[in-house]
């Protein structure tokens, strides 16, 4: 793994994916970079508002924020075609927004309202919008890697050129389904991209203390005949480059890619967790590498006008304000939904 470790150093220049599995990708076009920035700012503002609304008692249940991890969701979404499939985890707000799902529907789902993406039947951990090819947020660790394989298998059989992209956390690399899915994807050469968002903490425990290898995903790639791909998950140009290479490989029929994106969640595991178990120095070091200000600086340095960025930031704030107001104005779902849509006939009857 010397090769892998040698490539681990981080730069701020958008040098692309590290590791031997990613093909070289040219400079990221400026319109892509501004759209990535816009996505990241929207995600950040949306999730901060979701947290505020939780503190106000308007967002209920649990939620798992991706604050700090936006560069993974945005970089990949920017590289995907509209027809590609996203599979995400319970930490899926960002991945849902990244596919173009309206903020109001997501916020209303978090608030348990009629206007919610699933009319309140799924909640924060199950965001799904088939129309946007956001094929679901899955709350049982590992399961959706196997399901993403199925979508990829179907795409391959149907000859559509679609790719399934499946995001998951570092903790997932230690559950059986991860290994079953990686093996099958490799054997069947499926057009699927597995993206490990390694935020260093498996819920409340450091992933390094419960994993036999240093890089929980990348170090497992060789077991499945795949090249390790380790990428700076806080660098949106790097995630975009890694995504582009993996998607191209999948579309070319060369099979799956396993990407490990190193990142950090700014908050705790879930809304009930202040994340106090993490060393303060570690938190501060990662906050200093917050992907959004870093990317902003890079855009300015590469000649993007400040006013363009300010416009993006103001528009995001307005969009979050509007979505929160619309969601709050939506009534609770009608109780008739309790017994709706167990079956394709729209009902829940189990007897005749």
């Amino acid at each position, binding site marked *: 793994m010397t090769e892998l470790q040698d490539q681990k150093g981080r730069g701020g220049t958008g040098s692309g994916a590290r590791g031997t599995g990613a093909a070289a990708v040219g400079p990221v076009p400026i319109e892509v970079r501004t759209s990535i920035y816009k996505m990241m700012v929207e995600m950040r503002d949306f999730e901060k508002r979701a947290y505020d609304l939780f503190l106000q008692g308007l967002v209920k249940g649990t939620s798992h924020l991706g604050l700090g991890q936006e560069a993974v969701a945005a970089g990949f979404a920017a590289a995907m075609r509209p027809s590609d*499939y996203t599979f995400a985890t319970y930490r899926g707000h960002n991945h849902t927004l990244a596919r173009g799902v309206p903020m109001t529907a997501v916020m209303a789902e978090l608030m348990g309202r009629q206007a919610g*993406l*699933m*009319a309140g*039947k*799924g909640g924060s951990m*199950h965001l*799904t*919008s*088939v*129309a946007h090819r956001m*094929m*679901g947020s*899955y709350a*049982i660790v*590992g*399961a*959706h*890697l*196997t*399901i*993403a*394989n*199925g*979508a*990829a*298998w*179907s*795409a391959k*059989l*149907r000859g559509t050129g*679609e790719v*399934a992209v499946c995001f998951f956390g570092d903790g997932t690399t230690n559950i*059986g*389904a991860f290994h*079953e*899915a990686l*093996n*099958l994807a490799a*054997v*069947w050469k499926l057009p699927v991209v597995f993206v490990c968002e390694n935020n260093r903490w498996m819920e409340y425990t450091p992933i390094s203390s419960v994993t036999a290898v240093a890089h929980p995903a990348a170090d497992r790639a060789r077991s499945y005949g795949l090249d390790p791909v380790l990428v700076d998950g806080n660098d949106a140009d790097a995630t975009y480059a890694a995504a582009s290479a993996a998607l191209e490989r999948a579309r070319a029929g060369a099979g799956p890619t396993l990407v490990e994106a190193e990142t950090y969640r700014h908050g705790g595991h879930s809304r009930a967790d202040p994340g106090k178990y993490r060393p303060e120095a570690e938190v501060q070091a990662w906050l200093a590498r917050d992907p959004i200000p870093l990317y902003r600086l890079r855009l300015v340095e590469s000649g993007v006008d400040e006013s363009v960025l300010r416009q993006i930031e103001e528009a995001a704030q307005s969009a979050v304000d509007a979505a929160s107001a619309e969601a709050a104005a939506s009534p609770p779902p009608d109780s008739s*939904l309790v017994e*709706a*849509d*167990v*079956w*394709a006939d*729209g009902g*829940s*009857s*189990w*007897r*005749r």
Partner: protein
Amino acid sequence: MAEMTYRDAVARGIAQEMERDPSVVLIGEDVGSAGGVFKATVGVFDRFGPDRVVDTPISEQAILGAAMGAAMTGLRPIAEIMFSDFFAVCWDIVANEIAKTRYMTNGQVSLPLVIRSANGGGARFGAQHSQSVENWAMAIPGLKVVAPSTPRDVVGLLAAAVRDPDPVLFFEQKSLYPAKGDVPEGEIVDELGTAVVRRHGKDATVVALAAMVPRALEAADRLAGEGVEVTVIDLRSLVPLDVTTVATSVTETGHLVTVEENPRLCGWGAEVASIVAEERLFDLDGPIVRVTTPHVPLPAADALEDAAMPTVARIMEGVRRSLQ
């Protein structure tokens, strides 16, 4: 009309549907060129090829996840779990993912898929290859549960399951694989959620499923020799459950006996009994009797397994108790 084994009927049903609909695919361990460990998919691979009939590693979660992801994106997979006991290693995909996704997404996702599995005892395979797990499935909202008892029903109910827009668990009782029965020529498509009255008698209603159906019929034959005329209902499907056929018969006979291969607690017979007690109590002229395997893991030795599973004699005894 041709006589055919239960196992050949499985292959025929799969082929019938794959021929009709190019989106139907078959995956599982050894289902391809090997023709299945029970030889229930012989010939399917040769006929439809490696793109549509795919062997998998021993990875039950990967098999069912692949079936789910394929079903949500335009295919109609038939997945095989070799022994139903193995559902225990992939139950997350069944119970948390496949069963709940339509509901959780407010109807956005359809999962037209079938999971076939060899279920039940009688083969002396011991406690980890002989369980009757249809009750596990019945307890999860969002799963349809089917268990045929005859070769004809295997073809017709499998076709209905494949064409159904919802996920169906299709339990093939492994001791029935060599059993023969008449199967009409041509396409057969049955209807889920319909029980069949296999024998009509005015004195008691016996409700059975899968391998318990032929035993119940034999018990009925013998009881007829004692002057007791028994109706035998083959339930065929637990979800949807044909309450109408059962309740109508109980109103006529006044007596209900369920015959279940599963261990006692929370078996499907308990649900049938509770429905009849709730809705037809005043039509009953005797206690509802459940004949089940005792609440034990199934033992391997033939003498022990035979003693555990409901026998013809125990079914007859159950009917007599109900009539007392």
